[in-house]
């Protein structure tokens, strides 16, 4: 731990106000505009919350991987704190995405869990980061804990692309991909695309804000504990 206190973005008032505005506009629009896909009922509006959450949680896991690699290279304790905070938020958002998807699945496809491609691979992704926290709690605090969790994070990430090859061959997809993405292009109607992009932006900024808060608070906690201030 270095001697000086290091801050991330210190003044986040503008970011908070922006997120508040974006979220409000997005939530209102998601219920006021036309339905995203005509075939489904109003329950499909959960799409505006479910998909951005899933995307942001995967980005959070990517952030965790990047900081883990940086930790292995530089051994900066801050990178370890950042990696851990990123995967905490990723897990939180991943669980929320799974729950929202499950609720939608119950209404649209008849059961909470259907062993769909996305469901299966997401469950495995959540298991990886669940195991990451199990490992972190099983090793005594210190450099060893940081290096073990960083190495595990890198190692576990190898298996993620493999699921892209294997899982689609076994499990059928129920996700309405063709309605949203056809031949690599996002085929959404005008207002739907606007609301979706707004919601994605809102959740991304929410992640940035929470991530910044989280790693700074963990860092300060550790700093205070090491210096013995109470």
């Amino acid at each position, binding site marked *: 731990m270095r001697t000086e206190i290091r801050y991330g973005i210190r003044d986040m008032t503008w970011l908070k106000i922006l997120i508040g505005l974006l979220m409000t506009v997005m939530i209102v629009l998601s219920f006021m505009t036309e339905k995203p896909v005509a075939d489904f009922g109003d329950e499909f509006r959960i799409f505006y919350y479910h998909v951005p959450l899933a995307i942001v949680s995967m980005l959070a896991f990517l952030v965790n991987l990047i900081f883990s690699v940086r930790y*292995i290279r530089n051994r900066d304790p801050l990178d370890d704190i950042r990696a851990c905070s990123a995967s905490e938020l990723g897990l939180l958002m991943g669980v929320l995405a799974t729950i929202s998807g499950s609720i939608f699945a119950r209404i649209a496809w008849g059961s909470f869990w259907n062993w769909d491609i996305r469901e299966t691979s997401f469950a*495995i992704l959540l*298991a*990886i980061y*669940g*195991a990451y926290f*199990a*490992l972190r709690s*099983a*090793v005594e605090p210190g*450099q*060893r804990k940081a*290096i*073990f969790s*960083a*190495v*595990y994070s*890198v*190692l*576990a990430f*190898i*298996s993620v692309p*493999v*699921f892209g*090859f*294997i*899982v689609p*061959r*076994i499990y059928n997809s129920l996700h309405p991909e063709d309605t949203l993405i056809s031949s690599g292009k996002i085929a959404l109607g005008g207002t739907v695309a606007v609301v979706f992009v707004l919601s994605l932006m809102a959740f991304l900024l929410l992640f940035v804000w929470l991530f910044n808060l989280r790693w700074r608070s963990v860092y300060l906690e550790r700093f205070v504990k090491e210096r013995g201030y109470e």
Partner: protein
Amino acid sequence: MNPRQTSTETAVRSPIRSCVSSSAKACFCLPLTRIMKPRWGMCGLNWAGKLVALIVKDFKVELRTRYAVNALLMFALVTLLTIGITVAGMPLDALLHAVLIWILIYFAALQGLSLGFIREEEAKTAMNLRIYASPGTVFFGKFIFSCLVLLFLTAILLPLYYILMRLVVIEPAIFILVAILGAIGMSAVTTLISAIVSRANMRGALFAVLSFPLVIPLLIVAISATSVCLGGPERISLADSLQIMIGYPVVVLAVSSLLFEYIWSA
């Protein structure tokens, strides 16, 4: 003094030089030694000699007590008997047989694979190994040892399963190949995890949890290939699953051998 504590020192002194002849050194070891960058240790063996010495040492230590292999075999047998008694001769379809076989091997492997590094930590001989051999040598030594243990286990379990569960194997050659590849792959994928787990608390449970995401791709293709050999439907083509069963462990092994040094010196 506990005989296990001196295991590393006594076992590695057995000269292995005789089994690696000088000509074999010249043509096989030289290019590899450049990649592996060996630390020339006190015994004067090159890395290949040390690798063999480590594996021989592990076998010697195991044969002195035999508690690991005994517990492992009994665990596997009891699990097999539980499956056999509860199924009670009912005909199962090919996929179900494949799932049972691989879950059996996986859980038996979970009990045994962590023994390599955990034993070193418990007998406090890990520091000895660090002085004696380079991280790469230790890593591959442990990998090959766990590989051999798992192959031995599979070689006992599969015939017993065949007899007890009245298995009908349509393609015996590929079935055996898949079993061998699966056992090797499983130990390749879990070697680094066992090194991590050996220095944490709650080892058994943690090992299962940590190895799950890495083992799952291997298990999926192994189960699919086995079920094809038993006459099941071909959801993943046999060629594809064999490719994944060879390629995936190689990738994991390569990354693990790069990352092992950080774990070993932490």
